[in-house]
């Protein structure tokens, strides 16, 4: 083909690159691996991730849930995973209809009016919600609860650093574990109150009251959800008066995969639809009156509005949104509720058992879904290391990772995938580590 184009060598293809910008020697990348060698290499790397093989009580923004086999099977169809963004609707109706279904399911779970085609994850969804709240209210202060996931807060700080938005904080009640503040904090400069529910400590917030208080001050209520399995049991933010919901959808059939790819859910009220970030799919008809779906309200988006767009997002998490759609459809109305009920039941069992271990307590009184703080009689990070090495269990997250002033607290998460025997083993492990500590001391 080179000769047909009048070229003598492959080098001539790059004649337009000045010689001093060309690589003079080959890349130091190693020579190609065969399929067998590559798999050996990655299997060997994977074997060094010991945490992936243990029973686990880790949550804090990423959750182990059961995903029916068909979720991963269907998303591996070429038609879905090797397709591009559906810019040509006539040959992208599969993707477009699935996104429309996703948007609807997100609305149903969150209790909101409209949802977009997805954000990168829960943390960036929260950051975009804060930016949107400023656009809607034209108020430049946003108050964020201290019980919002610390990494979500950090991402939001990065996003708003140049947006002229000031982030303030709202405290947490030491007794209930819920967000607590005085209404005097809500002056006329506050555009939004941001809370997470269940919050980072697992406590279910009183969203109705928070919404009323925010609205009384002319501010929006942004509700962050990291554990989407909770939608199957908890009153949806939309029914409590939330204005924007920013959620992580990983719980809906998406593997842990060391933190990504996940999928951000973003939903709001009808009147704010045109202020939303990201892609939206809507119904359209052809000349014969047949129903189809198209990307719509694109005048909000970067490819039309450029620097005046509501967001810079372009590629989102299409395939992961599809996985979540298949998950929600397969589990369905009953399954989503059964998963949520099992999570809550097993967490309640684990709470009772752990609280009965000498020296361990549950510091917060607010209702929880499937995550809760445990106060240990010893340093939590060390306790968790011993649980892993001696009892082969990931016992949870040491809160000292984010709150150095809380060395003895750990966050424990229980889902439908945790068998009773695993919970019992965790409890036995806690008892043993605690007991051996007294032996050493005596």
């Amino acid at each position: 083909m080179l000769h047909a184009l009048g070229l003598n060598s492959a080098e001539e293809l790059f004649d337009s690159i000045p010689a001093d910008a060309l690589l003079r020697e080959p890349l130091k990348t190693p020579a190609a691996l065969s399929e067998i060698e590559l798999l050996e290499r990655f299997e060997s790397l994977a074997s060094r991730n010991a945490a992936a093989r243990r029973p686990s009580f880790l949550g804090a923004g990423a959750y182990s849930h059961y995903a029916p086999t068909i979720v991963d099977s269907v998303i591996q169809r070429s038609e879905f995973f090797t397709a591009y963004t559906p810019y040509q609707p006539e040959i992208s109706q599969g993707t477009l209809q699935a996104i429309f279904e996703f948007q609807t399911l997100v609305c149903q779970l969150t209790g909101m009016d409209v949802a977009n085609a997805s954000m990168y994850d829960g943390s960036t969804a929260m950051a975009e919600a804060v930016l949107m709240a400023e656009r809607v209210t034209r108020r430049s202060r946003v108050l964020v609860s201290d019980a919002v996931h610390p990494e979500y807060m950090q991402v939001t700080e990065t996003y708003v650093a140049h947006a002229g938005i000031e982030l303030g904080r709202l405290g947490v009640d030491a007794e209930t574990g819920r967000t607590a503040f005085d209404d005097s904090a809500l002056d006329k400069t506050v555009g939004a109150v941001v809370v997470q529910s269940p919050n980072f400590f697992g406590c279910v917030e009183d969203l109705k009251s928070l919404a009323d208080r925010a609205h009384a001050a002319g501010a929006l209520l942004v509700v962050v959800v990291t554990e989407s399995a909770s939608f199957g049991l908890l009153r949806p933010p939309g029914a409590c008066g939330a204005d924007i919901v920013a959620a992580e959808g990983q719980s809906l059939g998406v593997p842990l995969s060391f933190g990504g790819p996940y999928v951000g859910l973003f939903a709001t009220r009808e009147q704010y639809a045109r202020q939303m970030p990201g892609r939206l799919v809507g119904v359209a008809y052809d000349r014969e009156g047949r129903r189809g779906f198209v990307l719509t309200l694109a005048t909000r988006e970067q490819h039309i509005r450029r620097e005046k767009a509501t967001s810079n997002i372009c590629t989102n998490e299409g395939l992961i949104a599809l996985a979540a759609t298949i998950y929600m459809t397969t589990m369905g109305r009953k399954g989503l509720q059964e998963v949520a009920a099992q999570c809550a039941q097993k967490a309640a069992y684990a709470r009772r058992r752990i609280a009965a271990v000498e020296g361990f307590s549950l510091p917060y009184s607010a209702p929880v879904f499937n995550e809760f703080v445990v106060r240990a009689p010893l340093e939590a990070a060390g306790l968790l290391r011993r649980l892993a090495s001696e009892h082969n269990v990931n016992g949870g997250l040491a809160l000292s990772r984010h709150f150095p002033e809380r060395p003895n607290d750990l966050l424990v998460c229980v889902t439908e995938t945790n068998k009773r025997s695993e919970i019992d083993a965790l409890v036995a492990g806690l008892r043993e580590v605690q007991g051996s500590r007294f032996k050493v001391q005596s």
Partner: protein
Amino acid sequence: MALKATPHITQNEALVFERSQTGRRGYRLPALDVEETPLDELLPADVRREDDLEGVPELSEPDVVRHFTRISTWNYNIDLGLYPLGSCTMKYNSRLNERVARIQGFANLHPLAAEEDSQGALEVMYELQQHLAEITGLPGVSLQPAAGAHGEMTGVMMIRAFLDARDEAGVEEGSQRRRSVMLIPDSAHGTNPASAHLSGFTVKAIRSTNEGLTDLGHLRELCASGDVAGLMLTNPNTCGIFERNIREICRVVHEAGGLVYMDGANMNALVGVARPGDMGVDVIHLNLHKTFSTPHGGGGPGSGPCCSTAELEPFLPVPRVVREGEQFRLDSARPQSVGRVKAFYGNFGMHLRALAYILTHGNTGLREATEAAVLNARFIADSLSDTFDKPFASPPMHEVLFTDKRQSRKGVHTLDIAKRLIDYGFHPMTIYFPLIVQGAMLVEPTESVGRAELQQFVDAMKEIAREAIEDADTVLNAPHTTRIGRLDEAAAARKPVLRWRPAEKTAAA
């Protein structure tokens, strides 16, 4: 009475909500194995759902599989054939990489697991960083951004942080004003100005020359204003042409005190051939879902790593993956960092696939892929330049730009040509982009296509050009072979219907 046949259901698959039948289910969970707590003790009624998830569908497993399989057949996809979207790099997605990403030791690994228990994953990220540094010639790498636009935002925020640190340290009297202008060629993708705006910059557009290159004179003029923070440049640019003055462009921006950000959307033209770091670029984002073959998935997930000079490295997002002896760990103690741009560490599943792509290609394979991608674009350019207007004379790199100038005289426009291409079995090219060329058609064949299929594409394009003259209506009413025809997008935007609602509620509303 004559039998009235209706099309098979595969052509008329309803929404999942419309297919729902009360009582059907497609899952089974183990029975609850702990003593049940009464619901009111578990959670007070005022925080529980009251709607019994009304509207959420109820389907059996075969219902679900058939539903999604049927609608999937309405999609074009790379595995079917050429998908020549310019600046999107729709190359083959290897099944091997999918298998790698699904190894349980990765797929089941929690991001907050202890570092000593996730060494394999950290090593994957570290190794990918090393490869991307070698490929770009830029040693500082963060894999955290989740997509191209996210990487852009990260890159320009790094420029902001670097300039603020430098100008604060320098304290040049009289130059207290923060540098606020980001220069962006008028041919750039819309995410560039949107990302610059999100990072607090004012955008000024640089004109393109009639050769399709950045106008150096205009660049010098804009740089002379003294307020320039940097330049965002795509290279090869979105006209498919290598910016041959790249070193001079970088020099001009650097002399004006600014930095150069490169949009890596078109890196498929350069891997193994030339490196942005050697050209004077300070920071670049890569699209793993373009150049490194991670699947596009119908619009994501992507992955947009940032690669920077050593000078900019302290400003990369945290946490960084670092190596200490034989151990890998996450380092968040980077006081100059722009901060965190995503929870956890980026789209790790995409990191795995991209690393697998690099390792299975090796150094020679990476270069060969680049050569084939450029060669294929060159073939299309040569074969179609007699038929379609090619606004710029230079030979293209990995993508070639045409316009509808000749066909539009007959009333046939780019959109019509694109829709007619569907009837010939091809996905259309990128259309109406870049914006600087009227009726743009940007064709990027990638390396994943052979000559026979390229020739079929060329033949189809020539046939459409002939039809535009002899049978314009056929083109204007295309596509004719799809399940549905052209959709009324204007009406859809005027009265948006963005979700399904039960019929009776629609009637009541």
